[in-house]
């Protein structure tokens, strides 16, 4: 059954609410090629936000208030214009988040970014799929575990993830395969124990995400014979209580070319906001609440079990 028909069966509609979050995808260039990536980002991708589009995004963010602005990619650290974005966005939002893979942040081109993050009180949302090296490296590549630990220690040393510093270090964990994520609170206890006990690393909170069947992850599901079973698991776990909390209702996502989507997954699948391509420079106001949101079978990933958004689980309760 399509996602749309499942909504109808439960007398639900997926409609926009008040827009509170601007998510900026600055491009698909990345130093890693993670197997779970829904964007198929990697070193082979050259998409990057141009200085002109950066200027248009900054102008848009100044015209409208967003309580949260969330910078993602690819690896945002590879965008030369990132310092300009940070300086322009930090004063106009309550919370500025940068999604980091931890390895790109260690590159020479990112040397000055840590100080900029601290200066602008940026929240760092760092990907760490597993709290053990073998499963993390199976998904992210050889050597990434030790590099990730080293960067987490560096972040701790400058105050990130340390109690009382006010510098938020969120860890983002997604399953290392074709299965659902654990409950967020129990996973956080496990990560906290593993990382602090074994490595002396602390963090603010853990967010658990579900792998979305798009991009490289979908290709892996197909080639490994897991697609049918995974989709059945997602659809079978549909929890109608999650629909009101879905991020696509309050997010506005802009891609590296300046085009608008309701979420990063619709961006990855090429389903634009409102069904047609709108450019950020042409948008007079924020989307009207009540307008429809395009959907696809991958939407089941956000409604399975406890559901999830880019801010982690919608509810820590399992579906019944």
């Amino acid at each position, binding site marked *: 059954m399509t996602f749309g028909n499942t909504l109808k069966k439960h007398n639900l509609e997926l409609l926009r609410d008040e827009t509170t979050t601007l998510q900026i995808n600055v491009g698909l260039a990345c130093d890693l090629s993670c197997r779970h990536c829904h964007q198929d980002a990697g070193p082979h991708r050259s998409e990057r936000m141009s200085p002109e589009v950066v200027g248009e995004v900054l102008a848009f963010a100044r015209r409208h208030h967003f309580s949260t602005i969330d910078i993602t990619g690819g690896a945002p650290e590879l965008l030369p214009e990132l310092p300009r974005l940070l300086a322009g966005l930090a004063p106009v939002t309550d919370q500025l988040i940068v999604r980091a893979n931890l390895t790109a942040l260690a590159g020479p081109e990112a040397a000055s970014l840590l100080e900029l993050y601290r200066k602008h009180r940026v929240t760092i949302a760092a990907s760490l799929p*597993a*709290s*053990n090296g*073998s*499963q993390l490296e199976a998904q992210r590549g050889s050597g990434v575990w030790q590099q990730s630990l080293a960067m987490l220690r560096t972040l701790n040393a400058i105050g990130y993830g340390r109690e009382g510093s006010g510098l938020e270090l969120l860890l983002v964990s997604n*399953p290392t*395969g074709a*299965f*659902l*994520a*654990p*409950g967020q609170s*129990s*996973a956080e*206890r*496990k990560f906290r124990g593993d990382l602090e006990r074994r490595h002396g690393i602390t963090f603010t909170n853990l967010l658990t995400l579900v792998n979305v069947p798009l991009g490289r992850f979908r290709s892996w599901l197909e080639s490994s014979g897991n697609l049918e079973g995974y989709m059945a698991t997602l659809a079978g776990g549909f929890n109608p209580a999650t629909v009101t909390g879905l991020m696509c209702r309050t997010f506005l996502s802009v891609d590296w070319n300046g085009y608008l989507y309701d979420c990063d997954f619709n961006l990855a699948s090429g389903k634009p906001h409102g069904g047609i391509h709108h450019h950020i420079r042409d948008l007079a106001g924020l989307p009207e609440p009540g307008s429809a949101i395009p959907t696809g079978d991958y939407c089941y990933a956000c409604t399975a079990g406890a559901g999830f958004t880019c801010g982690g689980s919608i509810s820590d309760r399992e579906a019944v």
Partner: protein
Amino acid sequence: MDTYYDPNDLVKFADIAKDAPQLADKFFSYYNAVFAEGALTEREKALIALAVAHALQCPYCIDAYTRGSLEKGASLEEMTEALHVVGAIRGGASLAHGVQMRKIAEKLLQ
């Protein structure tokens, strides 16, 4: 029937309620309560279930609790250690019965 064990049969577990729904309700109610977070976490209970599944050599249970352990946040390292607990206890149980062998042999031998 091509095989006694078909992975697609796992999802038919609830069919056991047919013809005896009251008993199935009691069983599944108990089952769900057992696996809820308590003094042990859901992850720890899933790991115990995985270990017992291997001791019983139940293919359905191995399938269900391999996935279940991963979904509760267990690592492959923890899951593998759980299986070694099974191996140790199964092996230990066999060797412990060696006491009987020795007692009987000592009685029989001159």
